[in-house]
């Protein structure tokens, strides 16, 4: 139990920033550049760690609560989700709801922290963030419903259990394919990736997530970046397990396969970011609603 917990956390904490590195690298390769080293994210974090803080006089303690919650929540949420074939350290009936709501908590404080600066830009980002997540959250729920329908339990661990392999080959395969797409889109929204958001540009009025953390600095910004990386990995774990439901039975090979899957996901994100442009802002809700309809369709398929 304890060992499993430690392994779980170690995988998460160590590998998470790497995903960003892989994405950047992929994009660089697509652009014909060599790009930053894979470990650039780690360097960035270390640099931020050493820096001092700069606070606006408008801010209060809520400003710092954002990074704190943003870092803590993915950490805790990761305990509920299996990493590939490695089972989740904590698993109980209904933990999928907790999983969703933990991220909601983190969103609450990130947005509050943005509003604390009193900056109109950050307010704008905050408004967009909550709007889009309103549309993404039901989709996530539909996806989980489909998964729950296919399993015989209500915990993430059972939802993402070994039965998925047989499910892919059964009638439910189409549904699984659909929700995989949905989940990928949700992942892109939640982690502020192109085509919904652009993590690379700063000071642009069309941004969502990055604009909310404009005023953060030093270790707090580091926590946010690290938290975002963790979040991406946790959400990615969901996707990876769904896409590659194999298991070998030996923990090391399982872990490696999981990491490989994640890397593949990162490459995929990188490819998407390279070949697509950002959507116009009014288009984003339309895409999200479309995704939701897709997931509803998937649910109907398995309920029928």
């Amino acid at each position, binding site marked *: 139990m304890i060992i499993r917990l430690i392994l779980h956390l170690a995988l998460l904490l160590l590998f998470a920033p790497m995903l960003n590195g892989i994405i950047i690298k992929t994009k660089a390769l697509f652009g014909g550049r060599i790009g930053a080293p894979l470990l650039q994210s780690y360097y960035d974090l270390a640099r931020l760690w050493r820096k*001092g*803080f700069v*606070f*606006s*006089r*408008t*801010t*209060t303690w*809520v400003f*710092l609560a954002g990074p*704190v919650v943003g*870092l*803590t*929540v993915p*950490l*805790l949420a990761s305990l509920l989700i299996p990493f590939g074939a490695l089972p989740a350290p*904590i698993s109980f*009936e*209904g*933990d999928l709801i*907790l999983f*969703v*709501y*933990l991220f*909601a*908590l983190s*969103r*609450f404080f990130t947005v*509050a922290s943005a*509003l*604390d*600066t*009193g*900056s*109109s*830009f*950050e*307010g704008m980002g*905050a*408004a*967009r963030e*909550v*709007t889009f*997540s*309103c*549309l993404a*959250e*039901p989709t*996530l*729920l*539909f996806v989980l419903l489909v998964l*729950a329908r296919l399993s015989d339990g*209500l915990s993430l661990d059972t939802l993402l259990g070994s039965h998925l392999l047989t499910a892919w080959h059964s009638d439910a395969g189409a549904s699984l394919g659909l929700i995989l797409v949905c989940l990928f889109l949700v992942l892109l929204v939640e982690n502020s990736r192109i085509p919904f958001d652009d993590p690379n540009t700063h*000071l642009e009025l069309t941004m969502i997530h990055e604009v909310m953390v*404009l*005023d953060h600095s030093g270790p*707090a910004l580091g*926590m946010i970046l690290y938290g975002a990386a963790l979040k991406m990995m946790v959400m990615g774990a969901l996707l990876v397990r769904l896409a590659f439901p194999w298991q070998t039975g030996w923990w090391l090979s399982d872990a490696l396969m999981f990491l490989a899957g994640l890397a593949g996901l990162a490459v995929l994100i990188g490819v998407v970011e390279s070949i697509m442009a950002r959507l116009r802002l009014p288009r984003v*809700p339309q895409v999200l609603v479309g995704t939701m309809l897709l997931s509803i369709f998937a649910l109907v398929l398995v*309920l029928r």
Partner: protein
Amino acid sequence: MIWLLSGIVLTSFAGVPGLFCNRESLRGERLACILTLTGAVCGLIAVALVLNSGGETYLDLPWSIPGGTLALRLDPLAAVFMLPLFLVVATGSVYGLRYWPQRENPGNGRKLRLFYGLISGAIMLVLTARNGMLFLMAWEVMALSGFFLITTEENKEEARRAGYIYLIATHTGTLALFALFAMLDHTSGSLIFPGAGTLPAAGSGLMFLLGLFGFGMKAGLMPLHIWLPGAHAAAPSHASALLSGVMIKTGIYGLVRFTSFFAEIPAWWGWTLLLLGAISGILGVALAIAQHDIKRLLAYHSVENIGIIALGFGLALLGRSYEQPALMILGLSGCLLHVVNHGLFKSLLFLSAGSVIHAVGTREIDQLGGVLKRQPWTGALFLGAAVAISGLPPFNGFISEWLIYLGALQPLKHPTSALGLAVLTAPALALIGALALACFVKVFGIVFLGEARSKAAVQAHEAPLSMLVPMALLLVACAWIGLLPTTLVPLLRGAVENWAGIDGGTMLGGSFAPLGWVSLIGWLLLALLAAVGLWLSRISRKVPRAIGTWGCGFQFSAPRMQYTASSFADFLVRLFHFGLWSERHGGKVTGLLPGVTRFSSHTPDTVLDRVLFPIFLGAAWLCRLLRACIHNGVIAFYLLYIALTVIVLLALFIL
């Protein structure tokens, strides 16, 4: 029983001694507060005794009115509704000492206290009455006291209008209940409430519709919520807390109690409630997002939360109809727990909002800002309540929503063709949750964070201790339920057994609803947050907050340039345009060098202002037209009516 009775009497008449005191003396209000507190403690003892013994306490006395007996019964189902009542009433009465002091309100302070006590006592009576007559009486005393609470400031047009709408809504509901109880009397043969599961379901459809109308009106289930926003906005904050936190729940109680009478439940009852619950939840919160009056906003959240409660209850009914005990237990437990939870965090929200309003003097969110710096404690308490009402861990809102979610997921395990649709509750709940989060982060962010948007907001001051301590108590209760939900399991189990008339609540808290795990995660989350937070605050303590917010290069940012509540919500409001029909005035920018322009948006109530109001205006016009024709002042016509009556009656009788 004696404890309960003394509790009812003490709280009911808490405001009476004040009537005999001087208009500006402190004695009356203090006495009222002490009496209310004593009454609440007495009631609490009664509830504790009942829960301890595991049974129920009752009183049955003859009463010299037709069909009436003084039948009181306190069982766990009633106790669930009682507990938040005591806490809210007690905290509200202490809070009221400084929020609405007699000295500053010589005109209406005594009235407020009188009806505040009366409504509390009446609610207790409503919850314990087991005779239709007694129930209706207590019900109406409660409703009328509510009216007087809403019109505390009757000199204001807004309060009068809200009061009138409330009064007609509640009375119409009560009339439906008259019919309901008359029919119950017809079915069961007496006005005494029948035991759980004793009535046949045959012919109960009309009764259910009547109950749904009457109780739903009180509960504020959309589209019967018309009275709610105005009423909660107009009443003093601690009265709003009581109305919104406790009184509207009596509607839920009525529905729960009423449905318990029937042996089997037709499936359409549950579906109706699910549908209404989803509509209330989604449209309620969408309307809330569009508001910029903080109390109206909170009132719409009551609609939303009633929607969530109705979702849970609908699931429970479906569980009964389809004979799925797990669904029933989870649905009902979630519904009942959410009743308690909403009572706690909504009261806290109203009280803390009241504290801000008291300090700043406006309810307009767009006039506030940066209040957290002036009222750190109020702000922190509000934040806690906001997190709780958004259904986020580790507070109580999450626990009840989680139970309802679990209930909604049950049909997946036992796929029967029709019941499968009930899983749609879960995404509906998710949407509601996400929107609620958006709304509360907006309120908290715009009111408490950023820079002050008006002079009054700059001069705000922290509330006195006698207002903060009651609020803190409510937050502690919220956290208690969130972190130690297992302590409430016996109560919920008892209530479920009461309702279903079976011994089936044993599964709650076990493996299929592992509250223990949730609580563990809650503690873990809290510990981690505390650790990281403490560490971060330690390393950042010495950093001066000397510079302004980065304005993306713009040097002259002013507080007025901040995002406002309206602009924050604009995106979502436009998404929900199909249900809100917001009005937008101005804002068009024309020309190369646009001049000064104004923009305002306003979201009237969809049902009241868009549908009912025009209908009523039309009906009133028609009535006036009709009566101008009928009663036209010419006596010949009146004689003609008499002649016609004679002719018609003769024709009917003789031919």
